[in-house]
Structure formats: C-alpha cells, structure tokens
C-alpha cells in the first residue's frame, strides 16, 4: 500500500518536471513582460507538430530535429514579439489578451487544417521504455527522469541568465520600468524581443519532450496553457524556482487523483490548484 502511494507520488513529481517545462516560458513572459500569452500552449503544440514533420516526414532523428527547432523557435519568438505583440503591449489590457487569444485560435485551426485532428506522438527510441528499478515495485522511467533534470537545469540556467548576466540585468531593468529603461538608453522593444526569443527556445525544448512523452493533437494547446498557468500562479509570479514547485504540486495532485480513478487525473490537478489559490492568492513563493 505504502509502496503504491510512494510510487504514485514519485511519478507525479517527475510529471511535474514536464509541467514545469511548459510553464518556464510562461513564467518568463509573466515575470518580465508582465503579460499572459494565451497562445503559449498552442505555440508549444505547433512546435511539436513541426518536430513530427521533421522526424516523420524527413526521417531525421528526434534529437537532431530538436536541435534544428530550438534556434528557429528562438528567432520565431523574437519576430513574434517584434512584429505583433510589441504593437499591443503598451495599449490597454484587453488588446494583449485578445491578440494572443486570436493567435491561439488561428494556430489550433491551422494545425487542424494541415495535420488533421488525429492524436499524434513522436517516437523517441529506446529511451522511451528504459527504466531504472529502485526498490520492490518502484521503477523510474529514464525519460521522465531526464525531463525532470532538464527542467531543473533549464531553470538554473535561466536564473543565472536573469540575475548574473548583462542581458539579464537589462531585461530586469526594462521589466521594472520601461520608461526609465528607455531614459537610460536601453532599447526596450529590442530587449523584450530578446526575452521572447528566450521564451521561444524554452518552448522548443518543452515541445520536444512533450512530443516524445505524451500524445498531442491540434487542440491540446489550451490544456497545456492551463497547467502552465496554474504552475506559474502557484509558484508565485516571476519566481522561476517557484514555477518548478508549482509544476510538481500539479503533477503530484494529478498522479494521486489518477490513483483513485483514472478519470479524476486532470480534475484533481485543477481542484488542488483552486484550493491552494484560495488560501494563498499571491502564490507560495511570491517575488513581488
């Protein structure tokens, strides 16, 4: 009995690593640009479909496909911010919500038009089924472990980038006050675009792992967005390590819920989020 629950919680923590990966990009755009990109989940799903084309259509190995997609997403993020989001960032809040919402609808339906509504998955090779036996009946999958470690590493790197590098200092300056940053000669539009490019790269990484580990279809973006949003809010806005904890909480809640009844998995995550949010609306580790 104890073993079942320990196993379930352990799997939940590892699942939380994937959720944290979804949420890192959102956490950055929330913390730096102070807006919620409603198309976040759909952009991740779109990149997964690109990976599907590269691996399935062109026959590239998955790792090579991810390596190609990361720089493309970096540039894509830069252009998205520069050409579209920057135009509405200064306007009222309604505009930025509706532009990203419109983008989300367009991506979902374009994917459906191009790829059809089928549920897809990208093959990852031997790593998918490899496990490490811990004790008794508790096994840890290699892939989930790799994902969890990658999430932790990525957060550590981004934390270093934001708080220990020149560009990080600039990003934080613009984030604190656009007007003041412009006054001391920073080009805020460009710095925002660089931040969004970094978000794009994190999206590509999470898309790569998501495509191997879980099924996806053109309409799975919103559910990814909601989970990412919950992880970000639970962890506290703008706190990257908090986002990891938030992701783990959602992951464990889902795993424990699924242990009661498989149909309760997603609902359990939402309910735990709402319960914690009601008692701590500022998140567990608020930065601001």
């Amino acid at each position: 009995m104890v073993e079942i629950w320990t196993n379930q919680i352990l799997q939940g923590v590892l699942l939380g690593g994937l959720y944290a990966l979804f949420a890192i990009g959102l956490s950055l755009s929330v913390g730096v640009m102070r807006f919620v990109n409603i198309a976040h989940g759909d952009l991740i799903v779109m990149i997964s479909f690109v990976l599907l084309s590269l691996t399935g259509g062109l026959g590239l190995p998955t790792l090579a496909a991810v390596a190609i997609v990361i720089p493309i997403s970096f540039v894509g993020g830069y252009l998205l911010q520069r050409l579209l989001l920057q135009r509405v960032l200064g306007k009222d809040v309604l505009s930025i919500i509706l532009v990203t919402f419109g983008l989300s609808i367009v991506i979902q339906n374009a994917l459906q038009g191009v790829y059809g509504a089928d549920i897809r998955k990208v093959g990852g090779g031997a790593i998918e089924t490899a496990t490490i036996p811990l004790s008794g009946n508790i096994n840890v999958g290699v892939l989930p472990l790799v994902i969890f470690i990658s999430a932790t590493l990525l957060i550590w790197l981004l934390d270093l980038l934001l708080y220990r590098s020149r560009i990080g200092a600039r990003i934080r300056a613009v984030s604190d006050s656009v007007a003041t940053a412009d006054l001391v000669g920073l080009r805020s539009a460009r710095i925002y675009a660089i931040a969004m490019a970094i978000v794009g790269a994190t999206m590509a990484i999470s898309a790569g792992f998501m495509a191997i580990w879980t099924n996806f279809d053109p309409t799975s973006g919103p559910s990814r967005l909601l989970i990412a949003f919950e992880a970000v809010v639970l962890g506290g806005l703008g706190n990257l390590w908090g986002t990891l904890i938030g992701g783990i909480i959602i992951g464990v809640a889902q795993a424990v819920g699924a242990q009661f009844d498989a149909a309760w998995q997603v609902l359990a995550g939402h309910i735990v989020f709402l319960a914690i949010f009601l008692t701590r609306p500022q998140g567990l580790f608020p930065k601001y």
Partner: protein
Amino acid sequence: MTHFLTTSYSVFVGRLLLACGIVFLATGPFLLDASGMQVMTEFMLMLVLALMWNLLAGYADIVTIGQHAFVGVGAYAFFGFLVFGEWNPYLSVLMAGAVAMLLAVPVMVIIFRLRTAYLAVGSWVVAETLMLCAGKLSAFGGGSGISMPVSAVKQFGARIGERYAHIYWLALVLLAVVFISTWLLMRSAVGLGLTAMRDNEDGAGAVGVNLTRSRVLCFLWTAPFLGLAGALITLQKLRVAPPASFSITEWTVYIIFIVLIGGVGSFEGPVIGGIVFFLLREYLAEVGVWHFIVLGPISIVIILIEPRGLWGLLRRFVPGDLIPVSYTPSALKGTKTEKARSLAASTSDVLSQS
C-alpha cells in the same frame, strides 16, 4: 457638401434599420419556416451572450474566457429541474438563471483575486473545472451526456413547428429583457460610472466611482442571463453533454469574435457584430476549420487598427449613438444655450489665464 454619414440623418437611418430589425424579430414566427426560426433563435441567444460579454469586457474591465461556464451550468440546472425534479417548464428555465447566479458568488470569490489577463485565464480554469465536474454527474450521463426525454420535450409543444415557435418567443423575451434592463443599467448612475471606467479606469476611480462594487454588480448581473440562455440553448439542442453544453468555441470564442468585430465597449457593437457573424457563418460554414483562420486574423487586425470595431469605424463619421446610453449634459441642451455659452466662455477665460 457634407458626407451623408456625418449628418444627423445617418443616425435617423440607423435607428430606422434598428426598428426594422425589432419589427422583424417580433414577427419572426409568422414569416419564417422552421429552419429560419432555428437560426434566428440561435442568433438571439448568441446576441444575449455577446451583450453580456461586452458588459464585462467592454465596460467593467473583466475579460473572461470562461463565460461558457455559466451557460453550461444553466443548461445542466434546467435539465435537472425539468427532467429529474419534474418542475414546471417555465420555472425550470428560471431556476437555471437562479442557479447560475448562485454559482457566480463562489466563482467571483476565486477569480476576483486575479486581474486582467490572469483573471481571463483564471476564469478559464474555473470553467474547465466545472465542465469536468459536470462529466462526473452519472445521472446526467457522465462524460457523454444525455438526451431530453420525449415527454419533457413535448411540454414545450407537441409538434415540431409549434415547439420551434415557442422557443423562439422565449428567446425573444430573454433578449428583450436583457437588452432593456442592461440599457437601463447603463443609463443609471452605475452605468455612468461604468462608461467612465471604460474610458479611463484610474480617472473613474479618482472621481469616486466604486470600481469593486461596479465589477461585482456587473458579474452578478451577467451570470443569471447566461444561465437562462443556457437553458434555452438546451431546449434547442435537446440534450446536455459536458463538451457541448460547456462549449468554449460556441459560447466564448464566437462571442468574443462577435463583440470584437462589431465593437467592444458600445451598445451597437454586439448587435452589428452578431449580424456580420451570422452572415459570415452562412458563407464560411462550408470551409470547416478555415473559417476560424479567417476570423482570427480579422480580429487581430481590428485590434491593431480600430480597437472599437466596425461601430468604432462608423462612429468616426456618424454624429451620435443609435442606442443612446449617455446623456447630453443639460448645460449644452438647446434651451440652456446661454448658460452653456457663458460656461464655455468662463472656462476658456480660466484656461487662457493659466
């Protein structure tokens, strides 16, 4: 020569068109066949949803992506009271509104802790949670839903044509109540505050508009109407199911497009948007998913160019509102021209001195 649009005739013509529309709606069942009646019923219900979303997003600055939650809750409540409770059919419809309003209180407690885009996504989380919960109700057929029993359906008319006309009248009454009551709300002191909030929220707060109270009022105002619309939608579809009754596409995405295209933050906007949307839909229905791919960029371009939509575009020329929600300040009215002149003169004096 002044352009036609810039004269007050344009306002007159606009109001005439509006009046024609009202007459058309009021005589619908006598003019239309069954399928026409169904489309018009759907149009009226979508217009109710659009008016409500516009009240929240356009005035009270509450942009929700979770409006479908209350539609779905209304649908399930109506079904429960009518089929399981065997209540009077009209009472069941009203109870859908009451349940939606009751539920609005806890939902508000949750999402009002968030602001702006966080509130938008937060309302989506709440709607998703409610939809998943509805899927756990085994009496309502769980995740796959349940059809209305024939005996319950027949209470609204034994023959199909009769029933369609019946639902049409119910939808028309709902639309009329929503339209007139919301118009009166906008004409009241609260509405004046809401208009001020639309134009400048900080300014409105500074001159004494109670922002929180206005938001709470608007949210509680919309919930029962959304629930009532949900009940009538169920009557049209004759079944409840989580993904259909809580359809984000139909009750939120389409509604956002309608309000956005017509013009957010005006009374005319949702009406114009609704008409344009239904005309577009007739032509775009054949192209499947691609109609979203058309609607999406249109709405993004609208936000970039004219955030107040088609009505905002027209309103640059048309000198007045078709549906007047604001008062002309009494100091500027014809009978008090002298007073206005002296007021204006003294104001310019003050300005020139400073």
